[in-house]
């Protein structure tokens, strides 16, 4: 499979509080199985965008198909379960939603434009509370 440089790459990202690093949020881009982390959900999301862009550009430069990096099915099943309990919110509501404590996990669908190195985030879903999310993770 070849990739045109201006192709949009669709990626799903799950944001959760880190279980073992206080104050950190983990972002897992399932399509590339890329894990990163940040000081807040929005920071973790920005880190996921940066990490995913780096992987896409590096793979394409080396003639490797990035789709082969896809995360194991277990992570997709976890996201499906979380998705069923989720509510759609606007990306601009992310900070407010975290502060309210109403949601403890987020699912983001992002589209990366490889050529322009820009991205848009049209869909943001907020999962159950932190406690529920952590419980689910165990």
């Amino acid at each position, binding site marked *: 499979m070849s990739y045109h440089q201006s192709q949009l790459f669709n990626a799903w990202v799950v944001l959760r509080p*880190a*279980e*073992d690093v206080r104050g950190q949020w983990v972002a897992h881009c399932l399509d590339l199985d890329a*894990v*990163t*982390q940040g000081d807040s959900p929005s920071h973790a999301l920005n*880190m996921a965008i*940066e*990490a995913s862009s780096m992987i896409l550009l590096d793979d394409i430069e080396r003639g490797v198909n990035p789709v082969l990096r896809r995360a194991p099915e277990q992570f997709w099943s976890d996201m499906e379960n979380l998705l069923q309990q989720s509510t759609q919110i606007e990306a601009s509501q992310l900070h407010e939603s975290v502060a309210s404590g109403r949601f403890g996990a987020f699912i983001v669908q992002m589209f990366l434009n490889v050529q322009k190195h820009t991205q848009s985030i049209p869909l943001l879903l907020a999962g159950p509370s932190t406690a529920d999310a952590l419980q689910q993770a165990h």
Partner: protein
Amino acid sequence: MPCHFRDLKRVSEEAGCTVEEPSKGSHWKVRKDGKMYPIPVHNGLKTEIGNHYISGVERALGLTDLKTKL
């Protein structure tokens, strides 16, 4: 169990990976057999990196025993 970036860097290099400092952005690059994986380093060498990430780099680069060496 989480680790500091400096320890992850050391163990990765011992496992035959190259670790590259970025020219821009917050991610370093760890590379093995040509395959690259970004490392989130936004607090220098003492950045604490969680278990979820360590499992990710193990899967991506086929490193099965990073955790045991950390």
